C-alpha cells in the first residue's frame, strides 16, 4: 500500500491520495470492527460462563448472602423453692455485641467502646476467644448486662460504631445471692470447655444462640432441662446484616421451670443460726427424701459469675477465709464422732448383740486386754451403769467401746453401709464425696496392715478412719427417722415444662429398704435420741423447746488435731485447732418431718454449738405449717 513518492522532497508538499486513503481507512475500520466483535465474543463467553455454567453455584452464594439462619435462644427455665418463691430468674438486660467482619479495626473499636463504658482490661482477648465459636457475620457479645447509662451513652455515639449493636436479652439473676449459692450454683458464659462438651454430646447446634450455661450446682446438673431447645429463624439480611424480614421461623422450646424442695425460709434460718462460723446444715424430709435446706458457709454471690467475674473479685473470693467456694455439704469430710452411736446401737439391737436391758458400767476408762492405752469417757469418773437409753442420752463412750468390740468391725461396716455411709448419697448435684467407711479390706488395701482391735474400739465412737459428709449424716438420720427407707436425697421437687398447666412432682428414688428385724429396736434408738434433748441428763437438753415440741438428736465432736479426749478444750485453744461441732436431729420425734445434720467447724462441743442451729432449722420448718 505504500505510495512510491520521491523521498527527498520536503514533507509539507506532497500529494494526498484521498481515494487511496479512504480505501485504506475502510480496511482498517473493518479490521477494527472485527476486533470489536472478537472482544465482544470474549465478553459474551464470559457472561455465558457465569450465568449458565456457574449459575447454580453463584445462585446458591447469592442466597447464602442474604438468607441467614439465626438461632433463637430459648428462655432458661425459672427455679422456685418448694413454696413457690423465685430463686433463679431471668431479667431483661442489654448486651453489647459486635460483628467482627464489619469492623475495620477491632482493637481501636473496642478501645473506643472502652471510653464510653467500663470494659475489663482483657476485653479484646476475651472477645477473640469467644469469637471462635461464632460463624462469620454472627454477632459476638462483648459485654453483658449494660448499665442503663451505658446504653444511653452508646446510643448517642452509635453512628461511630458500624457493626456494633446493643441488644436486649434475658440475664440470669439470683435474688437470694449467697444464701443459695451452694445449691443453685450459677450460669456463666459458655467457654471452650463447655463447647467441647456440648459438641461431644451433639448439643452444639442447640447452643448456637445461647451465651450462658450452668457451671455448677442445680444450674449445671439440670442444664439440659433448664436450657430447652433452640429455635431457628431464617431471616433476610442486607449487606449490613440488618434483618429485613423473617422468612421462616421455628419457635424455641423454652427451658423447664424447676421447683426445688428447698424452703428458703428454713434455709435462711440455718444461714442465720450459723452466724459467722464456717459450717454446714443439711435438712431432709424423711418422708420423701426431699432436701429442705442445704447451707454451706461461707458462700459467695453467684451473680458475680454470671457476667464474667473480674479478676479482682475472683481473687477476693479465693483469698477469703473459710474457702467460700468449697461446698461443705457435699465435700466436707468430717469425723462423725458420737453421731455414729445411734446406728451402732441399732446394729447391736437388731443383731441381738445387746437388748433394751443390757447395761454397761462406765468408770471413765475402758481398757483392752494387754493394751496400756486407756479409752476414756468424756466425763471424768464415768457415767456409772447405763443401758442403751442412757448410753445415747449421755453419749457414754464405754458403752459403745464394748458394743463395738462385740459387734466387730465387719458387722459395724456392713450395717453402717446400709445407711449410706461410705458411699455417695445420689443427691442431684455433681461432685459429691463418698466419705469413708473403713473396713478390714479397705485398711489392707490402703495401708497394707491388718485391722487392730483398738481401731474397732474408737470406731465405736465414730473416730479413727471414719469420714462422713453433712449430707450423709442428714440422709442417714432421715433413714433412721422413717424406719428404714433409704432414699436418694433430692433437691428437685417438681418440674413444669413449658405449656404444662401444673408442675409435675419428681419423686426421690428409694435406694434401699433396710432390713428391719424388730421395729421396736428402732423405737428404742429413737427414744434414746429423744432423751438427748429431753432427758434429765441429755447432752443437748439445753435446746429442748418450751413449746413441747419433741426433738430427737445426737451430738458429736469431730477431732481436728490428735488430742487426748480428756484434755478439756479451753478458750485458749487456737480457733483452727478446736474440734468441729456436729449435731444430727429429727423432729417431731414421734412423727418426723425433718431430719437435720449440722456441722459447725471449730465450734467445740456438738451439743453447745451445733444443736441450737439444728433446733432453729427444725422450728423454722415446723413454723411453716403442713408440707405443701
Amino acid at each position, binding site marked *: *500500500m*505504500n*505510495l512510491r*513518492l520521491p523521498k527527498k522532497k520536503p*514533507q509539507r508538499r*506532497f500529494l*494526498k491520495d*484521498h481515494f487511496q*486513503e*479512504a480505501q*485504506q*481507512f*475502510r480496511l*482498517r*475500520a473493518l479490521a*477494527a*470492527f472485527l476486533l*470489536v*466483535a472478537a*472482544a*465482544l465474543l*470474549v*465478553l*459474551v463467553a*464470559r*457472561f*455465558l460462563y*457465569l*450465568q*449458565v455454567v*456457574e*449459575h447454580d*453455584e*453463584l*445462585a446458591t*452464594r*447469592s*442466597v447464602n*448472602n*442474604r438468607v441467614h439462619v439465626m438461632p433463637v435462644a430459648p428462655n432458661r427455665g425459672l427455679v422456685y423453692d418448694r413454696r413457690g418463691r423465685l430463686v433463679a430468674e431471668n431479667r431483661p438486660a442489654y448486651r453489647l455485641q459486635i460483628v467482627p*467482619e464489619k469492623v475495620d479495626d477491632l482493637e481501636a473499636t473496642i478501645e473506643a467502646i472502652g471510653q464510653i463504658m467500663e470494659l475489663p482490661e482483657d476485653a479484646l482477648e476475651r472477645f477473640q476467644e469467644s469469637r471462635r465459636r461464632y460463624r462469620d457475620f454472627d454477632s459476638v457479645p462483648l459485654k453483658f448486662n449494660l448499665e442503663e447509662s451505658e446504653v444511653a451513652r452508646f446510643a448517642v455515639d452509635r453512628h461511630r460504631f458500624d457493626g456494633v449493636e446493643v441488644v436486649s436479652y434475658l440475664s440470669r439473676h439470683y435474688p437470694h445471692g449467697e444464701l443459695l449459692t451452694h445449691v443453685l450454683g450459677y450460669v456463666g458464659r459458655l467457654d471452650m470447655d463447655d463447647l467441647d462438651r456440648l459438641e461431644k454430646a451433639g448439643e452444639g447446634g442447640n447452643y448456637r444462640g445461647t451465651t450462658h450455661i450452668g457451671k455448677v450446682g442445680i444450674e449445671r446438673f439440670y442444664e439440659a432441662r433448664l436450657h430447652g431447645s433452640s429455635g431457628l429463624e431464617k431471616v*433476610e*439480611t*442486607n*449487606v*449490613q446484616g440488618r434483618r*429485613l424480614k423473617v422468612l421462616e421461623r421455628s419457635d424455641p422450646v423454652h427451658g423447664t421451670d424447676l421447683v426445688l424442695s428447698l424452703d428458703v425460709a428454713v434455709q435462711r434460718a440455718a444461714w442465720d443460726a450459723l452466724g459467722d462460723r464456717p459450717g454446714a446444715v443439711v435438712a431432709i424430709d424423711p418422708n420423701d427424701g426431699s432436701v429442705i435446706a442445704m447451707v454451706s458457709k461461707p458462700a459467695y454471690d453467684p451473680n458475680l459469675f454470671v457476667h464474667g467475674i473480674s479478676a479482682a473479685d475472683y481473687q477476693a473470693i479465693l483469698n477469703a477465709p473459710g474457702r467460700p467456694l468449697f461446698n461443705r455439704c457435699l465435700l466436707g469430710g468430717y469425723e462423725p464422732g458420737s453421731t455414729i452411736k445411734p446406728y451402732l446401737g441399732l446394729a447391736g439391737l437388731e443383731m441381738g448383740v445387746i437388748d433394751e436391758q443390757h447395761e454397761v458400767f462406765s468408770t471413765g476408762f475402758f481398757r483392752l486386754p494387754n493394751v496400756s492405752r486407756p479409752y476414756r469417757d468424756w466425763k471424768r469418773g464415768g457415767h456409772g451403769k447405763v443401758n442403751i437409753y442412757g448410753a445415747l442420752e449421755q453419749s457414754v463412750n464405754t458403752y459403745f467401746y464394748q458394743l463395738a468390740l462385740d459387734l466387730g468391725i465387719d458387722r459395724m461396716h456392713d450395717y453402717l453401709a446400709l445407711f449410706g455411709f461410705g458411699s455417695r448419697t445420689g443427691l442431684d448435684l455433681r461432685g459429691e464425696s463418698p466419705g469413708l467407711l473403713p473396713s478390714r479390706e479397705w485398711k489392707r488395701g490402703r495401708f497394707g496392715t491388718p485391722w487392730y482391735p483398738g481401731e474397732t474400739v474408737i470406731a465405736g465412737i465414730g473416730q479413727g478412719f471414719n469420714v462422713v459428709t453433712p449430707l450423709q449424716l442428714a440422709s442417714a438420720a432421715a433413714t433412721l427417722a422413717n424406719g428404714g427407707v433409704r432414699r436418694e436425697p433430692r433437691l428437685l421437687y417438681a418440674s413444669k415444662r413449658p405449656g404444662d398447666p401444673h408442675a409435675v412432682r419428681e419423686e426421690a428414688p428409694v435406694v434401699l429398704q433396710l432390713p428391719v428385724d424388730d421395729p421396736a429396736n428402732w423405737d428404742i434408738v429413737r427414744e434414746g435420741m429423744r432423751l438427748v434433748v429431753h432427758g434429765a441428763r441429755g447432752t443437748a437438753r439445753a435446746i429442748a423447746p418450751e413449746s413441747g415440741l419433741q426433738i430427737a438428736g445426737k451430738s458429736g465432736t469431730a477431732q481436728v488435731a490428735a488430742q487426748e479426749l480428756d484434755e478439756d478444750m479451753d478458750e485458749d485453744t487456737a480457733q483452727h485447732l478446736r474440734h468441729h461441732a456436729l449435731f444430727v436431729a429429727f423432729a417431731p420425734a414421734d412423727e418426723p418431718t425433718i431430719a437435720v445434720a449440722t456441722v459447725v467447724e471449730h465450734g467445740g462441743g456438738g451439743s453447745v454449738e451445733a444443736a441450737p442451729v439444728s433446733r432453729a432449722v427444725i422450728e423454722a420448718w415446723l413454723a411453716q405449717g403442713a408440707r405443701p
Partner: protein
Amino acid sequence: MKKLVPVWAKWPRPDPWLLAALVLLMAMGLVVLYSASGGNTDVVARQGVRLGVGLLGLLVISQVPPHILRIWTPWLFAIGIALLLATWFFGTGRATSRWLDLGVFRFQPSEVMKLAVPMMMAWYLHPRRLPPDFGVVLVCLVILAVPAVLIARQPDLGTALLVAISGVFALFLSGLRWRVIFGFAGAAVAAAPALWMVMKDYQRQRVLTFLDPESDPLGSGWNIIQSKIAVGSGGVFGKGWLNGTQSRLEFIPERHTDFILAVLSEEFGLVGVLALFAVYLFIVGRCLYIATMANSTYARLLAGSLGLTFFVYVLVNAGMVSGLLPVVGVPLPLISYGGTSIVTLLAGFGILMSMHAHRNFLR
C-alpha cells in the same frame, strides 16, 4: 456548498439510526437505574435531565461543521493541557487531584482530554501523508503521551490509559503498518514489569485482588466477588426487574454507577446482557460506518477513534463487572449514573453526528 438551496431545507441532519440506538440505550439505562437505586425516582429524574441536556448538546454540536472543529482542535488541546497542569497546583478532591473547582461547577480536565487527544491526533494526521512515516508516528506518540502522563500522575491510571488508547486508535486507523503495531504491542508487553514498578500500592492491590479475589473476600475482593455472584445468580433470564437480591440488599457495591451492569445481569440475565451488547455493537458499527463515509481524513480518524474508544469503555466496564479485568473506575457508557461521563460521551457523539450530517459537504 451548494448555494441556492435554503438552509432550512437541507439542515445538517444527525444520523437517525445512531440517535435511535443512543436513545434506546439511555432508556435501558434509566430502567436499570431505577432498580439499582432502590426505586429512587429522584436519582432517575436527575439522570434523565442530564441525558436530555446531553442530547441537546449533541444536537448542537452536530450542527458545527467538522472543519470548524478541526480549526478549534489545537486550542482545545492546549486548554486541556493547561487545565491538567492547573490540577497539578489547584486540584481538589479527596484522595487525588483530579477535579478542578471553577466556582460554579467542578470538573475533571481529564474528561476534556478524552475528546481532545483523538481530535489532536486527527488534526495532526489530517494533512499528512498516510500511512504515517516514522517521524509522524513519533510526534503522535508525544501528543498522546503528554496528557496521558499528566493524568497518570493525578493519579488516575485508568483514565490515562483510556486517553492514550483513543490516540492509539487514531494511529491505527490512519494505516500504521502492522509490523509497527505488533512491534509496539511487543514493547508494551515487555514494559509491563516496568509499569508494575511505577504503580501505586493501591493500584497493585487492585491487580492482585483481581488475580485472586478470594484471598480477601471481605476487603478488596468484595466488589469482584459480589459482582460475580450477582451476574451468575441472574442466570439466563434473570431474577426479574426490581427482584435482584444482590442489588436490593446492597451487596453490590457502586451498584448504580460502575457496577450497574451487575444489576442488569442479575435482573435480566444473559438475555438482557446480550441485548445490551447488541445495542453497543450496533452503535460501534454505526460509528465506524459514519467514519468510513466521512469526507476528510480528520473526520474519518476522529469518528473512528471516538467510536472505538466508546467500545473500550464498554469492554473495560463489562470485563470488570464479570471479573475478567481488574477493578478500574470506568462507568458503563450511558447506563451508569453520573454527569461527567455523559457530557463527554454525548459531546463525542455530537462530533460523530456532525461528521455524518456534513458528509456530503465538500470542502
